């Protein structure tokens, strides 16, 4: 199976303080591999380093040591992002643009021809159920609508790899179900989905494999069923076990 996303001993340090004397290690020797066609869950408590890892993959943050690759290309090269789609956790888009204008803008960045872009925009707006609101400026959208615009823009280039950062954050149960359906549909189309989430129930449902990190270090990686079997518990209890959290009853 070919590897679509890979990190090799990835280390990210942030310095802070007036004289930059305080160093925080956000990621330490992270080794990850995601195969083509799988839905990969990236789990960890708050502050574990999930978002930092995603930031490195997207080229927002340079690694201090190690490397990261998308489609075998170093992430520092913009061409590595030609075939990916990204949905950030906090979805903010140009408020003065309409959904249609926003999608057309991103389509142009990907070099899609006008006719192709038009077709794709129509498809996506239908998929995320924003067809009636396509000509309204995004500033008039609700949070759920903005999240759906985000999903549409992440899919504008028909990406082979989708990177989602907490895709169901802030969504109502209906919205979460729609996102799960879209992820499932993408998987059926042979796309690869890499997403971080706190919703372990969803992860257990949709993911083929997961990686669990804590304090910047990879604690476990493998198939969901294997992890569950290994810890003789559901994914939530396995997760807590792996990150070393003891419930009051256990202690």
């Amino acid at each position: 199976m070919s590897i679509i996303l890979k990190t090799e001993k990835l280390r990210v340090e942030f310095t802070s303080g007036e004289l930059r004397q305080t160093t925080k290690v956000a990621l330490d020797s992270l080794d990850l591999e995601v195969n083509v066609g799988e839905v990969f869950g990236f789990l960890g408590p708050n502050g574990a380093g999930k978002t930092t890892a995603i930031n490195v993959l997207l080229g927002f943050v340079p690694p201090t040591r190690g490397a990261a690759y998308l489609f075998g290309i170093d992430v520092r090269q913009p061409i590595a992002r030609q075939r990916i789609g990204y949905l950030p956790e906090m979805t903010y888009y140009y408020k003065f643009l309409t959904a249609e204008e926003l999608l057309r803008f991103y389509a142009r960045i990907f070099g899609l021809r006008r006719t192709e872009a038009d077709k794709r925009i129509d498809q996506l707006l239908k998929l995320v159920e924003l067809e009636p609101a396509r000509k309204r400026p995004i500033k008039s959208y609700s949070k759920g609508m903005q999240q759906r615009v985000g999903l549409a823009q992440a899919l504008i280039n028909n990406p082979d790899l989708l990177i989602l950062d907490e895709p169901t954050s802030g969504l109502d149960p209906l919205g979460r179900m729609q996102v799960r359906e879209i992820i499932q549909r993408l998987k059926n189309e042979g796309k690869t989905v890499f997403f971080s989430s706190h919703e372990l129930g969803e992860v257990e449902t949709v993911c083929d494999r997961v990686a669990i990190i804590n304090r910047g270090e990879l604690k476990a990686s493998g198939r969901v069923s294997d992890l569950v079997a290994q810890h003789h518990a559901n994914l939530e209890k396995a997760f807590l076990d792996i990150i070393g959290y003891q419930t009051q009853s256990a202690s």
Partner: protein
Amino acid sequence: MNTIWALAGVVIKELYRRKDFYVLFVLTALITIAAGMVNFFHDPKIVRYVKDICLLLIWVSALLIAIITTARQIPAERESRTIFPLLAKPVTRWQFILGKFLGCWLATGMALLVFYVFFAIITGSREQNWPWLTYLQAIWLQWAMLAVVIALSLCGSIISAAPSSTTTICFIAVAGILLVGGHLNTVALHQSQPLQTIFYTIYFLIPHLEWFDLRDRVVYDWGLVDWLDCVLATLYAAAYTGLFLLLTWLGFRRKSLNT
């Protein structure tokens, strides 16, 4: 190139959907028309003061639009987090900067054109004379100057994350150069060391934006600047623009962007 034009298009849309340009245009128009309606000694042919006032307002407005629009581009993108879905696409940071620059420059250019059309109508209705080539030179050189100002603002917005401080600093710098820059050599002559060296250094380093101010030539009907001088001034503006854009890229390319 497509990416740069796409980015520029978004900047232009933003300018024309915000109120700034319309407010400034209406203000300029109202003040000019009010000034033009004043009766001075029952002589309807007096026109130069109207030209002077209108051109001053155009210059101030164009600088306001250029600096304020540019100073908030990158900080606003970071604050509103729109930069993340954008740079997650195959967009280099250099393309990002160029797109922002081009958008601000084109938007300011369009605003300038509208202002000058208004100016031509107002003054032409009094003078019955339209020196189109002179106006064209004045617009072109002002636009070239604004390219330098926009690049400078963009560079400032990388250094200072707050648009207000970038705007203030840029205004002071540009106003200082326009009013005083051309005279620093005269001032330096009358200073002792080390002030003399400091003044001369500043004099030779700063972009001489006052060259691009053809208002006096338009107001007092002095005719055209030699076209070769126009070309040389344009190249000079292009060089400084390139310099400031390069500095912007150097400052921005390694900046960590944390979501």
